[in-house]
């Protein structure tokens, strides 16, 4: 049985004018760490709200921990831990009071499931009497995670937990998720950061409410259908505009130090072709090489294909 399952879910806002979720189906297996990867506005939060039973889908069905999100929403609420994208604990209550409050709400106590939150709680317990509103971003995330875990949920739904958190805290946070996975909790996590996708077992790429692909990160990278070239020069911006005007180039986009280039027709000596073209237009110190695609490259490839479709 799948821990989370969505079938042909549709959701529109504004009387059907804005399509937030467009025919989305995917399954998350029990005990899996599943990532929902997509830019802002892709429909990630809407999916989370449907799964947490606070939002009703227009069409389609979904189940969490084996319970239907519409008919058996009460059963789901006891079995799901939800951490919304926006920090939503009581800012005027202390760490301890927040935790105690949510424990009682789920008819349990901090002690009962202490081993589950121990590793995380130990990091924030020195500030037990500090009000939640006065915590740093990283500590807020940890507290929110503790509160979502306090009733030992079967499924953990985390909506962009690392947005707005520094790099160190982000890494710590993912380590914590791995620990939780060891304890058999199914985790569905969304993020706009492509580099975090590799940390998931399986990912779904989502854009404009549509699922582009559901695969393991390795397979997504492997499935990249064309050769990817990387290029740089003294003036990357000029090089990029020049390549965009080149007939043989299918697409060119900036990405860190090296820009990425995809050619229309594969050719054994594409590199020299590109280099000659670039130098003809006065670009100096042009460097071009073949590079292994990342999830991000894949995402851009898939979304461009979707757009041309």
């Amino acid at each position, binding site marked *: 049985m799948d821990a989370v399952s969505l079938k042909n879910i549709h959701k529109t806002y504004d009387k059907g004018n804005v399509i937030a979720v467009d025919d989305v189906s995917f399954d998350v297996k029990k005990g899996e760490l599943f990532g929902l990867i997509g830019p802002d506005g892709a429909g990630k939060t809407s999916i989370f709200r449907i799964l947490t039973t606070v939002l009703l889908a227009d069409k389609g069905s979904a189940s969490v921990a084996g319970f239907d999100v519409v008919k058996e929403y009460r059963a789901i*609420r006891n079995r799901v831990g939800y951490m919304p994208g*926006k920090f*939503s604990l009581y800012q005027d*209550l202390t760490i301890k*009071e927040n935790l105690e409050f949510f424990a009682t709400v*789920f008819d349990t106590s901090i002690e009962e499931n202490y081993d589950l939150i121990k590793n995380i709680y130990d990091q924030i317990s020195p500030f037990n009497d500090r009000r939640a509103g006065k915590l740093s971003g990283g500590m807020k995330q940890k507290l929110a995670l503790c509160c979502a875990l306090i009733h030992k949920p079967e499924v953990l739904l985390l909506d962009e937990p690392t947005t707005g958190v520094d790099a160190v805290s982000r890494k710590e946070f993912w380590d914590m998720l791995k620990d939780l996975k060891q304890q058999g909790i199914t985790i569905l996590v969304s993020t706009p950061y492509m580099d975090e996708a590799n940390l998931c077992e399986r990912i779904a790429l989502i854009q404009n409410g549509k699922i582009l692909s559901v695969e393991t990160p390795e397979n997504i990278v492997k499935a990249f259908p064309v050769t990817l070239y990387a290029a740089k020069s003294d003036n990357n911006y000029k090089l990029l505009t020049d390549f965009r005007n080149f007939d043989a180039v299918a697409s060119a986009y900036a990405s860190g130090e090296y820009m990425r280039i995809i050619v229309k027709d594969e050719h054994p000596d594409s590199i020299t072709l590109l280099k000659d073209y670039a130098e003809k237009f006065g670009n100096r110190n042009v460097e071009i090489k073949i590079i292994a695609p990342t999830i991000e490259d894949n995402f851009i490839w898939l979304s461009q294909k979707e757009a041309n479709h």
Partner: protein
Amino acid sequence: MKILRFLLQKEFRQIFRDKTIIAMMFMMPTVQLIILPLAMDLEVKNISLSIVDRDHSSYSQQLISKVGSSGYFKMVSMEPSYKEALKYVERDEADVVLEIPAGFERNLIREGKQKVGLSVDAIDGTKASIGGSYLNAIIADFTANLEINNKATTPTNYTSKSFIDVTYSTWFNPLAQFKYYLVPGILVLLLTMIGGFLSSLNIVREKEVGTIEQINVSPIKKWQFILGKLIPFWIMGIIVFTLGLVVCWLIYGIVSEGSLLLLYLFAAFYLIAVLGFGLLISTISDNQIQAMFLAFFFMMIFTLMGGLFTSVESMPDWARNISNLMPITHFIRVVRMVMLKGSGFADVQLEFFYIIVFGVILNGWAIWNYRKTA
């Protein structure tokens, strides 16, 4: 029950942690009850008077000193001409101009009658009409006591006028002081603010901060959440009401003539009605600014139309109907009747019925709305 108890505990903890709110809750009744009734007085005093005396006779002097000694008027100036006196009105320095024409005394004695001119600045309608009638009364009294008139009504004169003399007796507020009218009303206003507005802001805050999201995905049921929000404010309301009664007694010596139990019974049910109103506002608003604005809108209408300052009975029919559709009107009426007149339950049972109906409608509407939105 355990969850509800915990919700209440959390709610009280949050309320007591917000120092400003707590301070306001105790400051508000004391300050409002002490300052407002003393500052606000519908009795018109200190009417600025400009006099044009063109007679300069002993009679005109008598009239002027009579007006001056009445205590209601403040002489601003003595002008030789009406035109110049009117300038004072134009500059808002005088409210009334009294013009005594030349030949005032002579005409009074010879012909037995004389006209004086009264010009009133009517921008402040109440002040103008009351000030004008004061002056009229003083002048009438002056003519009645004139020596010449007294001589004319000697016993030999059988044609003396018969007239009806009216004697007043003011009941329930012997000195006819405005504060007795105002103080019970302010008590009601306090309950309305705490029950209706503080509660709605509190619920909307959960929406705005997003904590309601976290509550919604938990097994807390909606009725538990709502009760957890309303009960603390009901208790606060009763505390503030008690505080208000104590202030009334300490500062004004106003002790309820009627039974305190009856007052509390009404307060308890009135609070339920306004809490429903607060809940309704919170279901309509998405953030605290919207809630604040809505609350302020209704607060203005409640204060000015609920019979707090002016009598509902003297409003035009349509306005009286609107006024009767507000719970505050009925509660103000009851508090006045019970506190000042000592009315019993039988006298106010109709109002009790009204308040119950308001409670049912407002709460029902709010809960219906709340279900729909969340």
